């Protein structure tokens, strides 16, 4: 860490007499041994002298009231009015509309299919019942049941 720069940061406060006693003495001791910081201090002092000698102008008397009038907060509008205004903005409706259309397309393509019950278990249940019937080809029907069940797992 560079101590020179630490004291240099305190030069402005040193010049204005705002440093506490031990800090003031530390900067003062440093200035005795550091030519660069003395030069910086002189520069700061000359700027202060120039600023102090510049003529001063007084602010208009109505400045505060004018600023208060100009920048006072707007009255609170009803939330419904604000919501309507936001929803009326095209930047809201364009993406919302696009999303709705995409959702509708997905629902048309896949939605109705997903809701349907697969037919295969019904075919298998029907075949299983048929195999129990009094029929001379019951073994064939029993075999058909296994085929329907197998098809159920083909997905």
């Amino acid at each position, binding site marked *: 860490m560079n101590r020179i720069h630490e004291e240099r940061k305190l030069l402005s406060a040193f010049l204005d007499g705002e440093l506490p006693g031990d800090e003031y003495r530390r900067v003062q001791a440093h200035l005795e041994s550091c030519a660069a910081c003395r030069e910086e201090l002189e520069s700061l002092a000359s700027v202060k002298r120039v600023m102090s000698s510049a003529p001063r102008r007084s602010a208009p008397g109505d400045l505060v009231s004018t600023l208060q009038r100009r920048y006072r907060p707007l009255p609170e509008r009803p939330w419904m009015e604000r919501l309507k205004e936001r929803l009326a903005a095209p930047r809201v409706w364009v993406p919302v509309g696009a999303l709705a259309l995409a959702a509708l397309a997905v629902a048309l393509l896949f939605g109705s299919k997903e809701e349907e019950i697969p037919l295969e278990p019904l075919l298998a*249940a029907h075949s299983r019942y048929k195999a129990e019937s009094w029929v001379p080809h019951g073994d064939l029907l029993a075999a058909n049941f*296994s085929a329907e069940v197998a098809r159920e*797992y083909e997905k």
Partner: protein
Amino acid sequence: MRSKAACAALLLPTLAARAICAASPDPLELLQGAAAGPTTAYEGHVSVIRWFGKRTRAEEANVFFSPPNRYRWEFIAPDGSPERLVVSDGKKEYLSLPHQGKLLCGDAVKSSPKPTEPDREFELMLKNYRVTLSGAEKRVGRAVWVVEIAPHVRGKPTQRVWIDQQTNVLLESGRFWDKGAFAVLSRYTRFEPKESLAEELFEFKTNPGTEVDEHGLDPDYLSFEEMRRATGKTFNFPQTLPGGFVFESADFFDVQAQTVRQARYTDGLAALSLFQTNRPVRPPKDSGPEAALPPHPGDFGLASTGHVLRFRRGGLYYTLLGDVSEELLSRIAASVK
């Protein structure tokens, strides 16, 4: 002399026909014998061909049977590899699907009695079908009786069965429509009666840790009232349907967390299922083009088990399945209020 010869020539065919008739069995008894199941063990090879719409599905299987009710069906893929295996010890049936990595089980077919007695079902069949003996033929080198079962009403397939004279096993069975088009044809291409078969053929051995799933499709035989109590739904299904079908039993099961309610009807030979669901059922994925019919109450499709008709009534969805014509299925659907 000449007149005597002429008389004899006239009488001989009549006498011969009478002799054949006297030797011919009753077709009803033949059917009853076939339906009761064979009393002999056998093994063989079966080919099954199904026609639905413009599509055909063929399957080949090695079959083993041991009385009273043990069976093994080894379905073979075209490359000769096992496609699925059905094994039953008479109580449990295992269904192995090696390609899908699935092993399922359930009650063996005919392991528990149905509410409708075989005699009652037989009477119903006689009411709806005409059973005749067509003759005697040969199948896979064996003598068979040919029995034809023709429906009294239009819209049902005619069935013809070739019954082995020695064992009562159906060596061939065909179901076909008015114009002669087959719906299903199954036939043994090899058949060998056996004194007995190895026990292990009918035992399904699983490795430790093998996951066996219940397929959950074992039929229960509920009345409408029992199903109403079980599912909390009231059913207005009719007791009888056009085409001679009468209500036999009801059942329900779950598919994708949806309860499917099933009412089963029979005409003594063909079975019909009426399913009720809260959501629509997907149409058959491999159905043929839909037929151009007069206005009907729903959408038709074709599956390997027969025609499928889906319709909606009172906010509920119905699916009718049966091996009957679309016209008859349509009339049946119209009777469901």
